[in-house]
């Protein structure tokens, strides 16, 4: 084979980095959802990336990368949160996390009442319900949510339906005004 025309296949690091860049949004959102402070969020992003890399050799390319990444990211995030002292486990509102946009041209969303309500709602959820809401808001199918969490699709549908009722009730309260 002519060495000039030979195509070198990407290394595992290059493949992993390309996939991680493509799905960076998952990293940011999971870390922001489960962090207590801005420093925690940066540490958690790093820890999730490290665990993804460690597990990457077992990733089956026939399956969706996003589903696999959600599993690892959520498992790392929930485990990191539970490893801290119970007293320090309280959530800090997402608005306090300093989730500064990477793109400086991104609009300031602090004034959007929907963003504020969303933050307040997520702040009030437990670890598992947070994962469920995150996956739902990320527009994952019920099947994919079931695969990530390890519950049945029927169970996912039931829980989403209950969360919808809870949102209606919560957001209809005086706190939303």
């Amino acid at each position: 084979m002519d060495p000039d025309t030979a195509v070198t296949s990407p290394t595992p690091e290059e493949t992993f980095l390309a996939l991680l860049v493509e799905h960076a949004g998952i990293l940011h959102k999971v870390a922001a959802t489960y962090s207590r402070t801005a420093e925690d969020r940066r540490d958690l992003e790093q820890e999730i990336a490290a665990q993804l890399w460690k597990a990457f050799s077992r990733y089956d390319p026939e399956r969706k990368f996003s589903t696999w990444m959600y599993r690892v990211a959520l498992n790392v995030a929930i485990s990191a949160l539970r490893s801290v002292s119970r007293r320090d486990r309280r959530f800090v509102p997402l608005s306090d996390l300093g989730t500064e946009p990477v793109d400086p041209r991104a609009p300031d969303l602090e004034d959007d009442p929907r963003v504020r309500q969303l933050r307040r709602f997520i702040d009030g959820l437990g670890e598992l319900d947070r994962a469920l809401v995150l996956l739902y808001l990320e527009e994952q199918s019920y099947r994919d949510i079931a695969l990530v969490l390890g519950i049945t699709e029927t169970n996912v549908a039931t829980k989403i339906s209950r969360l919808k009722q809870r949102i209606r009730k919560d957001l209809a309260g005086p706190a939303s005004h």
Partner: protein
Amino acid sequence: MELDDLKVAWSQLGRGRETLPMGIVSTLRDGKLDQTRSALGRVAWVLRYELAAGVVATLLLGSFLADHWRTARFLLSALVLHEYAVITILIAARQMVLLSRVDFSVPVLTVQRELTRLRTFRIWSTLGLMIVAPLLWAPLAIVGAKGLFDLDVYRAFGAAWVWGNLAIGLAVIPLGLWLARRLAARNTRSPRVAAFMEMLSGRSLADAKRYADELARFATES
């Protein structure tokens, strides 16, 4: 407002945050992503340390037993400490096996169940070892004095000293548990001290049980 309306707000939150932090890119390119500290990595290091300490203690006590097996008062004390060290090894090894089974790429509920099982076992075993520890002061003094200074504590201080120390050890156990409950309720600056007090006071165990129930409810609720 409905859950579907919140999807719009959610997508707005993600705007401008689609790029990978440069720290992660450079760490990966430098081949250092494996060295990132993690919560489970810290547990693994503690377990390695506990295992190594248990092995060293078992070897030293084994050597002491070989030298003094004919003398009942030394034999009994060394045997108690030796069993304690062996149990420490078994507990650390069991936790290392449980930890090695944890695979973050399997479903969330499965991983969280495995971690809760590990955490519950760790709390119970540490609690057991900590409660028994005050009773080991007297055998430790007997074996240590003989092994290090060739001093026979029975003869030097008398049997009353040994029994007195055992009694103090017994009294320290409820006192320590009471103190842990008091301190766990207060704000401690050190997270490690806070976690230790929560464990001794039984709060960590109650929390693990609560989380295990929550996992079961999450899986079966229909």
